[in-house]
């Protein structure tokens, strides 16, 4: 089974002389339970690709299919529901809500997810345990270290039990040791739950935790 099909996607930002071609005819397939590393220099279109896959950004042309859902066919409302239930996004800048505790940053999914509050709460507590955050669950983001924040963001992406996890540069603001730990944890969470995942990185050492590597350069995917 394929978890994701990106078919001939092009994304152009702006128009006229400010036009930026961030993705050019990108095509990609991802199997169930496959964890892929997306490698590329700054500005190559990595975040743009994840945003298109995650239903945040409409492609200029081409189609994206996650599971059996074709994203380009979704209404705005359906897109919102898709984001709440079918993908987990770990953003480049963590993006935790500053006035919510570590635990609340994860249970915030309860009112918007299709899962019940009880399910979300149970999964939250389990994830906090697995991510080593139980002792920090009632701390606000400002009271957490960079690694802890990153782990909370990972927890939030997993808590609604999506089939596809998108992770943008999880190690960018962490030192090597901490970065390795976080990626290891992320890989084991994805693998143990049988999910598909894409991790953007430009750190080659992180590649060993993934199944496959795809490179991107100036918006073009170089498979293999």
């Amino acid at each position: 089974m394929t978890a994701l099909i990106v078919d001939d996607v092009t994304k152009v930002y702006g128009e006229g002389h400010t036009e930026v071609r961030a993705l050019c005819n990108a095509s990609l397939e991802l199997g169930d339970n496959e964890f892929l590393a997306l490698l590329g220099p700054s500005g190559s279109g990595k975040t743009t690709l994840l945003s298109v896959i995650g239903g945040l950004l409409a492609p200029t042309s081409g189609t994206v299919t996650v599971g059996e859902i074709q994203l380009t066919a979704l209404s705005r409302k359906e897109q919102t529901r898709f984001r709440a239930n079918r993908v987990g996004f770990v953003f480049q800048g963590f993006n935790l809500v500053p006035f919510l505790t570590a635990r609340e940053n994860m249970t915030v999914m309860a009112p918007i997810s299709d899962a019940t509050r009880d399910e979300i709460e149970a999964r939250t507590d389990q994830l906090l345990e697995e991510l080593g955050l139980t002792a920090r669950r009632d701390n606000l983001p400002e009271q957490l270290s960079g690694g802890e924040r990153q782990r909370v963001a990972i927890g939030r992406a997993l808590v609604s039990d999506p089939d596809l996890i998108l992770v943008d540069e999880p190690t960018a603001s962490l030192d090597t040791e901490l970065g390795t730990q976080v990626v290891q944890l992320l890989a084991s969470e994805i693998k143990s739950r049988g999910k598909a995942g894409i991790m953007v990185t430009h750190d080659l050492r992180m590649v060993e935790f993934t199944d496959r590597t795809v490179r991107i350069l100036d918006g073009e995917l170089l498979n293999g």
Partner: protein
Amino acid sequence: MFIAVRDIWRSKLRFGLLGGAVGLLIFLLLFLNTLSATLLGFFIGAIENNSADVLVYEATSRRNLQASRLDLSLLDEVAAVPGVVAAAPIGELTLTAAIGDSLTDLSLWGVDLAGPGRPQPIVEGRLPGPGEVVVDESGVSEGFEIGSTITLVASGQELEVVGYVRDRRYAVVATGYLSFDEWVAVFEAEFPGTPVVPLSLIGVETAEGEDPAAIGERISAAVAGVEGLDRKTGAAGTPGVDSISQSFALIVGITFGIVVLVVGFFFLILTVQKLRSFVTLRAIGTDTGYLARSLVIQVVLVVLVGSLLATGVLWAATLGANPAFPLAVDRGLVVTVTAAVLVSSVLAGVLSIRRIARANPADAAQGLH
């Protein structure tokens, strides 16, 4: 609910300050309303709460009873108008009175103690006999207490206070009520040699079930040179009432506008400050409606807390109230003002909701800039 309450809980100081500011402004609204009602009551209470159903003015007096002079002979003409049960003379004279060591103004009303215009109800004491007077209870602050003796300065006549009526001041001056004959004697002593003592008004009692305003019109039509008005119209038509009401309406309106602007701008500032969180929440699948509801909940909580606070302050202020400055927590007023502030503040919150709706969830992915 969840996000709204957590947000307030984690920014107690900010929301507390806003709640406090809204509370003070709502208190100001309540206070201004009470003040305007009190002031108007002091100005026209004697007309608005008169025991006569219809008051007959001299037509050219422009509803100013101090300019209204009627001849006693008109009494029978008015009494003869269909629908009129009884007609009685009302005389008003403002003069200087000495009470204790101090001099003060007193608006003295001569009325038929058993007819329309009589001082009724007597809230304490009894109706006046010869040489006696009942006063409006707010006059206590000027020294007009039951048992005290008023000396009319020009004539040297003395009157003893034997009872109180309520909400019957006139022209912001303390009022006293005594029988019409006594009043005529006072008038003649004040103006020795006056050829005729004029009436100020004629008080009319209308038949059961008749509309006083209609009877008033009937009197105006039937009797030459007079204008009959129900007491509400007479009170509202008193020169000066309009400008007092309008001034207060303006101040209340401005204050109201300030409350709404404060709430609206505060939430807009907070929204802009928290835009990154809102963008993130939308990116992870929160719909705008949920965020809008949570903002509305916050607005409602802030206004309700403010209103509670205002009511508390007003209640504390009533402890210092007295008949000279009556102050009370009027539940209807509190509810009306709160509801009005609530509705307008929620509408002002739409500014913030629009800002949230306009934000692009895709921005969440673009990381730290």
